């Protein structure tokens, strides 16, 4: 190593030693507070309230790990779907159908209730609804992702 080169290396490093800790610290300070995707207990679910709870089903949705509560409000059936884990699919729509079991295609009578949220949401079923199934439909792949029968 020759002397001017040694000095050049030392200066380059001294420069980095000033710039990088500052940049690193600025990046850390600027970090946004962690976003929680799951519902904090205190936040009320969106949608109509459930005045008369009827059922709570924990395992109706298999891998999707959605808690489901069913009840009545003003004579209508209201269903609450509450993700217990992060929902990784942004494209899921919730339908109701009178059918008791559902294949890959959406039944002809399917009635759109809304989209599945990353927080708990409540959906009011159509007035005629009694029993039947809830269906989660994936827009991206145009297919039924899961379904669960509703208690009568």
């Amino acid at each position, binding site marked *: 190593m020759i002397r001017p080169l040694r000095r050049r290396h030392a200066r380059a490093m*001294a420069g980095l030693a000033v710039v990088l800790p500052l940049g690193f610290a600025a990046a850390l300070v600027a970090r946004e507070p962690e976003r929680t995707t799951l519902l904090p207990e205190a936040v009320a679910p969106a949608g109509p309230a459930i005045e008369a709870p009827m059922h709570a089903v924990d395992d109706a949705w298999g891998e999707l790990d959605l808690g489901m509560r069913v009840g009545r409000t003003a004579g209508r059936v209201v269903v609450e779907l509450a993700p217990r884990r992060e929902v990784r699919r942004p494209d899921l729509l919730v339908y109701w159908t009178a059918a008791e079991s559902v294949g890959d295609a959406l039944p002809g009578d399917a009635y759109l209730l809304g989209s599945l949220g990353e927080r708990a949401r409540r959906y009011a079923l159509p007035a005629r609804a009694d029993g039947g199934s809830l269906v989660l439909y994936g827009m991206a792949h145009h297919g039924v992702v899961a379904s669960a029968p509703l208690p009568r």
Partner: protein
Amino acid sequence: MGLEYRAVGWNRQKKLYDLTLAAAVAVYLAAFVGVGLALKPNATAETLLIRAFGTAAFALLHVILSIGPLCRLSPRFLPLLYNRRHLGVTMFFLGLAHAALSIVQFHLFGDVNPLVSVFTSNAHYGDVADFPFQPLGLAALVVLFLMAATSHDFWLHNLTAPTWKALHMGVYVAYGLLVMHVALGALQAERSPLYVVLVGAGLAWVLGLHLYAAGREAARDRAGVGPAAGEEVGDGFVDVCAVDEIPDARARVVCAAGERVAIYRYGGRLAAVSSVCQHQNGPLGEGRVIDGCITCPWHGYQYVPETGESPPPFTERVPTFPVRVRDGRVQLDPRPRPAGRPAGSCSVKGAP
């Protein structure tokens, strides 16, 4: 082109070095993907590979940047330096794999040219937390590419040493860009303090090590020649040290006339040459005499002590300096001899 092309010498040490390196990289990548799958079963293979390649390249860059100063601090690390450029090229390919997969994953399926998309998909250039960190990675990759592409000695000769060295100082630029690529990218998304601690510790290590080694080198340069710091003893010679302070087959390095000179003792004789190896400016004075030749500790270039010339067929040459012995003390004339009139050697007994 008037340049002679010399094939890379593949010796046992180089092969062993490369095998160890390849094995370490393979083990790291496999372990990263394996542990990643175990901890996060939902992660896709692409994501795990992107992260495995990215972290492997970044970790290897830390190793590469540590070798230089570590070798200044202790000769035990010299075996790492021997083939450092293979580490650099490997690191480039790991970074390339990470970048290529990232571009496929995040930019290929849009309607914008993927390379343009790296710069335009996120336009928050004024925002720290949401800063487009990917162009920083791409800029680093370009620098690493230029260095990897010119890493062969052929380019060292072709570009001339000063240009080549300036180009390879780019590693500091690349390192700075990558620290910010990670701090503004992965560290914004991953919240675990573990990642912050890892990146921060790596940064403190690299900066601390370099500044410490640089400080020691600067102190050595300032110290000058011998105990009497270059006291003139007549005829332009300066006092260096007692003959017995130089072990056989080794050198005493002194700073004279602004540069380092190595005074070698071998088989009862003394000879002084510039301590700057002609290959890549390695510290010639930290080598030893092997088979009658001064041998550079970095890549083993050899020079005949009396003439400063590499034995044929090689043509490298380092400047030589006159030495003599008076009353058991070594004295050096810090004016280099002109080429073609080498300084020769003298007996440790004081006779010519």
